[in-house]
Structures are given as C-alpha cells and as structure tokens.
C-alpha cells in the first residue's frame, strides 16, 4: 500500500489560504461566513479525498469509532465524578429553606435516581442537547460554548502560529550552534519562558507596553492592539517548549549517515539543515502538537482572566466552582473532542512528514 503524501496542488495553497484568513481576522477584517464554510468544506472534502486515495479510509474510520468510544467514556466518568464532588449547584452562603431547595432540585431533575439522570444526560448527548446551565438561567450549554469558543480559538491560533514561528527556528539555531553562545542564550530564554508563569509576565508586559509606551491596550478583545499581548504571553510559553524539542531532535538527526552523505555531496549547510534535517526532526514536535493545540485553543484561564478575554477558559474553571454540572460536562466534552481530533490529525500528518510511517490497518 502507498503511504500518504498530500497532493501539492491541495495542501500548500490551502494552508496559505487559511493563513490568510487568520491574518485577516487579526486585523479585524470581517470575513463573510460563507468564506469560512466553503474553506472548511473544501478542506474536509480534500482530506476525505486523500484518505480514500491513499487507502486510509478504514484506518480513519476505525480511529473515529475509537474516538467516539473515548468521548463517551470521558462523558460518563465526568458525570459520575461530579456527583462524588461534595457541595451542590444550589448551595449558597444564604442557605435555602429545604422546601425551596427541593422545588429547585425537582425542576432540574436532581431529585431523580442517579441512573435516571445519567440516562437522560446520555440520551440528550446523542441528540446533541447538552441541557441548560444551572448558573446562567435559561441559557443553553451549546449556546454558551458557541459564544465563548471563538475568542479562545482565535487567541489560540495566533498563539500557536507565534509558537511555531519562534520555536522551530530557535530550536534549529540552537542545535546548529550546539554548545556555543547562541545555543546557551536561546536555551536560557526557553527555560525562562517555560518557568516564568504568565500571571507574572502579563502584568510586566502590560506595564511596559500599555502604560509605558502606550502601544497596546491592557485588556478586552477588540482589535490588533488588544490581540498582541495575550498572543505573546500564551505563544511564547509554547514556543519555549517547541524550541527545546526541536533542538534535541535536530541534534539527533544531524548525526545521521544520510546527512553526512548530503554534506559530502556538497549540499549547502542551510539546504541540509532546513530541508533534510528539519523535516526529519519534526516528529517529536508533531507528537507534542496534538495536546498543545487542544490545550491552547480551548482557552487559557489565566491569560483570559488577565486580559479579560471572553473565552471558554473561564467556563472551564468557574463552572466547577459553581457546580454547574451541565456546563462542566459541556466544556469537558469540547476539550476532549478537540483533543481526540487533534491527535488523529497528528497521526495522519506523521505519514506526510515521514514516509517511513505507514498508517494502514
């Protein structure tokens, strides 16, 4: 069987197109929704075509079934764990008279046996109904997620772009000048990038760039002047991890026989490094990318709080302290679905980056 190689006429132009869309959102250019939909449809159709073309349909199908099971298990486990958690959604400082509490629990069917509640939840889930929030009265969970996810995804995508844009070249450079001053400098930066928490970096940046230089806005989410700092804070942390991964991986590949052969044949150092070494060094980065992407685009609580970004990160954390069961389940599901999808994509991309990897069943 053939291994998957993305069609050059499909992949690169599409990637550039998506990049263009992302850049346009950064500058607050309004993009009609049909552009988004057609881009998504074209991408999906292309991906599907490639899946068939390279005989990976069965593999992808199998993985999708596995993913569904994973998500169902996560949903069930979360549902049960929530009920073990002490304290209920309607406990408050001003304790309610028991009869009123009973009426509320009845309204939300919390008086039913756990198994019945679980059954109702799973049936709703299959029908795509996540129920209503206990905290935000009358608001549907899907609605809350749909309203808060875009800002998080937007910030996440900018941060990821920045992370790869900085992380990969820095990693390569550090490896290229292994044990010399650029290596030491870049790795010192990377270590501080990983270890200094964002709640410390963010206020310092705000102090310098908003109150000192007056270039950017200290908070809210309303245009490039608002996007830059949070993107920087969130992106550089991920960049630091990526740089370290790339460096280690490049150092390993650089010693390989085929690189020596290439050098002996007279290939220029940069061609060698960026064409032959880099491509083969990206596998660990790719592995790391699944969880990274899922983590970043589903929102960072700290960064969203500091910059008052109306994203999903807040719901991920606050829904738990509010014991808003439906919202906790909703955010958990969003996160797990994105994680599962990212991991599947990463596995498919392995085959593209490294022809030695075969993804056949």
């Amino acid at each position, binding site marked *: 069987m053939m291994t998957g190689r993305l069609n050059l006429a499909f992949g690169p132009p599409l990637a550039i197109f998506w990049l263009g869309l992302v850049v346009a959102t950064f*500058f607050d250019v309004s993009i009609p929704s049909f552009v988004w939909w057609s881009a998504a449809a074209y991408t999906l159709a292309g991906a599907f075509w490639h899946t068939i073309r390279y005989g990976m349909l069965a593999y992808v199908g199998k993985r999708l079934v596995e993913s569904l099971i994973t998500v169902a298990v996560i949903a069930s486990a979360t549902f049960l764990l929530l009920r073990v958690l002490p304290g209920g959604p309607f406990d408050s*400082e001003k304790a309610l008279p028991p*009869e009123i509490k009973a009426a*509320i629990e009845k309204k939300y069917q919390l008086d039913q046996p756990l198994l019945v509640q679980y059954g109702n939840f799973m049936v709703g889930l299959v029908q795509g109904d996540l129920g209503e929030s206990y905290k*935000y*009265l009358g*608001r549907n969970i899907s609605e809350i997620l749909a309203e808060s996810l875009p800002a998080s995804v937007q910030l996440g995508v900018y941060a990821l772009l920045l992370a790869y844009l900085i992380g990969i070249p820095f990693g390569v450079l550090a490896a290229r000048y292994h044990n010399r001053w650029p290596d030491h400098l870049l790795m010192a930066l990377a270590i501080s990038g990983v270890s200094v928490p964002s709640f410390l970096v963010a*206020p310092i940046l705000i102090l310098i760039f*908003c109150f000192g230089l007056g270039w950017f806005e200290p908070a809210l989410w309303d245009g490039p002047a608002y996007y830059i700092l949070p993107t920087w804070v969130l992106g550089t942390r991920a960049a630091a991890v990526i740089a370290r991964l790339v460096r280690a991986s490049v150092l390993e590949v650089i010693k390989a026989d085929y690189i020596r052969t290439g050098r002996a044949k007279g290939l220029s150092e940069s061609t060698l490094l960026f064409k032959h070494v880099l491509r083969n060094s990206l596998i660990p980065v790719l592995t790391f990318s699944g969880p990274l992407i899922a983590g970043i685009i589903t929102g960072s609580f700290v960064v969203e709080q500091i910059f*008052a970004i109306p994203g999903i990160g807040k719901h991920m954390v606050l829904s738990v302290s509010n014991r808003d069961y439906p919202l906790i389940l909703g955010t958990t599901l969003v996160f797990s679905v994105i994680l599962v999808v990212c991991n599947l994509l990463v596995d498919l991309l392995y085959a593209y980056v490294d022809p030695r990897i075969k993804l056949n069943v």
Partner: protein
Amino acid sequence: MSNIRILVFALLTTFLSTGCTKKEGKADYGLPLSETLRINILQEPPSLDWSKSVDTTSSLIENNIMEGLVEYDLNDPELSLVPALATAWKPNSTASIWNITLRKGVKWTDGVDFTAQHVIDGWERLLNPATASQYAYFLFGVKNAQKYNEGKITDFSQVGIRADADGNLVVELEKPKGYFPYLLAHHATFPIRKDVVEKHKDRWTDPENIVTLGAYRLKIWDHDKAIVLERNEGYYGEKAKTKYVLAYMINEMSTAINLFDSGKLDFQSSLPSRELRQLRSRKEYREAGTLGIYYYGFNTRTPPFNDVRVRRAFAHAIDRKQITDMLAGGQIPLSGWVPVGMFGYEADRGLKFDPELANKLLEEAGFKDRSKFPKIKLGFNTNEDHQRVAENVQAQIRKNLGLDIELANEEWKVYLASLKSNPPSIYRLGWLADYPDPDNFMNLMSSASENNHTGWSSKTYDSYVDKAVSMTNKEERRKTYSEAQKFLTEMEVPAVPIYSMVSQILVSPRVEGLKENPLTRYIFKGVSLK
C-alpha cells in the same frame, strides 16, 4: 512579482492602520464617550429574570431597568423608603394589612399601562413552585404564600394579595412584620409582564423581548462581554441624565484597575484587598460602610465549645482592631450582632478584648493545664482574605490563650457542605443585608435558621426575635434588639462577630452623582458625566 509585493505591502499597511487606530471619542459598541458611563459588573449576570436571580450582579442591572413599589433614599443614612411605583403604603393598626396606592400613568417600554395585576403576576410567579425561585421565601410573611409555594394550595386568590376597586393593592400578612415595606424595594417583588414571559419563555430577558419600566432599558446583552443600557425616554420620573451605561464583565480586579487607569472604565466596585493601602491614597477612591458582618461561629455540639465559658474566653481573646488594621480597608471592629449604620447597632454591645478575663474563664472551664484542651480546627473557605484573618486569629489565640488552632480551608461548595454535615470547631461566615432591618441579622441565629450552623438554639432568643419583628413602636423595638444582642453576644456567645463590612470603589473624576451607600445599591439615573 514586484507588483504582488507592493500589493501585499499596501494591504498590510491598510490593515495595520485600520486595526491600530484608537477610536477617539467613542466607547465600545460605537457609543459616544461623553454620554456613556462605563462600569464593571465583574461577571456575566446569571439571569436578568428578577423573579429568579439571586446575585448582586444581576440585581445591579435589574435595579436600573426596573423599579419596585418603593425605593431607598440612598442619600439618607437611615435608608428611608421613598415612593416609586407606589405613592403610599399604609398599614392598619396592627401592621398586618397594608394598603398600597399605585402610581397612575406609568408605562412599560412597550407602551402598556402599569397596573396592580402586574404586581400580583410578579408575586404569583415568584411563589409558583414551577418557577423554583430561590427568593420565594421573601414573601413567606404574606398570608398563605408559603402554602402556595409548597403546593399545599393551588388557588392563588387565597394568597394575601389583591387589587381593590380603585386598582390599588391590599396585602395581608400572616403576622405583622415591621420590615415588610423594605421587601417591596427588592427585585424579587417587582411587577412582571406575564404575557411577555409566557410568549418568549426562557428568552424573555433577551434585549429584543424584555419589557421593563425603569429609567434605563436593556439595549445590548453581549454574553460574557458587556451589557449596554439605554435611557428609557418613556420613564415616568425624571429621565436618566446619562444616555448610556456600558457594563463590562471583567472578573479580574487588577485587570479592571488597569482599564480604569487607562481611562476605559469610570467605575469599579470591587478592589483587591492587598492593594487597598496604596489605593486608599488615590483621589478616585471612596469607601462606605456596608450592612454586612463577618463572624466566627462555634460548633457548640462538641467540646470544648459546648461550654459557654470557653466560648466567652475566645470572644475576649480576639482583638478585632488588630484584624481590621491588618485588612486596612476601613472595616470597623464589631462585637455586637447588628452591623454599623443599621437601626439597632450598639458600639458597646458584645464582649470586648480582655485577655486576662479570657484566661480566667478558660481556667474556670477546667483548662488550667492547656494540654488538656481538645484539638480544635478553624475552618474557612479558600480565599486570601479569609486566610489572612484566620492566621491573625490563630496567632492571637496562641499569644493570648496559649492554645494552638489548626487552620483548615476548603473550596467554597465543599465548605458549605461541611458546615451542614460536620462543621469545624470554629467556622467563618459572613452575612450581607437583604434589607436594612436588624431582623435580617438577628434571625440568622434563631433555631429555625438554615444558616445557623452552631448547633446552638434558644427559646429565649427566638422569642426576642419573634417579638421584635412585629413591634411597631421603634423605641420598644430597639430595646428588644438590644436585649437580644446582649443575650447572643455576651451571655450565650454561639458566635463571635469580627467586623462590620465596608465596600470600596473607584470612581472617575468625570462622574458626578454616583452615591456610595450601605446597601451597595448603585442607581445610575442620577449620574452625570463631565
């Protein structure tokens, strides 16, 4: 190729220049800055359905788009009531039946005339078990209201509220309650448009559906981002001075202060306690006593706090002033049970700091040998400020009584669950007034109170509280509360008050007429901008 480069360059510069230009003279949502009051309401209001909401964020918006039968005079330190939708409210001689005269000519935002039926509909909805409102108990003083809420009667006409022939209201109470008129200022008792609620169901509070009658109307509700209120031109009273209120939902206090400092916020109503020392010196800073108390309760079910002498010893061993000095937010040390600024407050009430007497009491209780003292835990919900107070108390008890206390913090909801099932030896809680009447505080420690986790109950105390609530003579009432407080905080001591609360706010110099007040009830119709 070079053409493409030029094109890309041109596009990028356009993007950059459009994106980075600051919108001069405009607030977000294209509102004119000179006519927009920009405030921070800290979080998304959980609901603008005034029969159901229970939190301060929601009520802040509700109090500005709606109005009750009566309203507080926020300029009056005694918080007297002034007419709103009602022009007069008079009790019969025993204060058990109230005649409420309604204002004529009030219109809802959709042009419909306001009538007594809208108030009755509001109360019916609040009490209806299907609504499952957490504030339903507010009206339990009304005849048959509790029975209706519990489903024991289903005919609402048996509940003690009706319209008379002139279109005014007659309310009949189960028992006389002196504080009854205060309830009419609370959003739970506001009138409601049943037809609108029934038509739009859960969506009725969306800006395009909601029908209100306050000085502002809901214009935009951008979930998790902001709410925009616009002046209601059809308001019956004096029209709002500022056309728009833009309310952001910024949870992080330091972020809000950054926005305030960069001129994007005019009003911030919650300040980080760690920064108070520094914030207090600013000209935009204001603080006001709030009707709220911070206290420690004892678990009196088990030793050592089943012994009243030990409870008194602890009350004498805590120097409250040391705690309020540390907090530096203007809090006032409190030893009585009624907060500063409320009817019934007495500065001299309660057990004062007296370590010598504290040690004597402890020895009388049989703990001359401190090693015999049982291990005790002080519980609080995880929070930096509660932690600071708890550590301070721990240190004071060690120094003044020679005893060690273990601190145990729990996440809020876990903590609430522990208070119900197995409270720690000492627990922290606070109480903020629902209405400015001492009954709201005194009731807290009554036997029937769901919020009394001490395990202590007393028929004597209950009878004080019961008696006082129906008294119509102010002086007699004050005397009864004084006796009740003496019994509670000097003789029985199931709990130790620590301080009377304070609210701190930042107000931009361009804002005029924003009044800080003990109820932290912010009404924006009288606010103007320079």
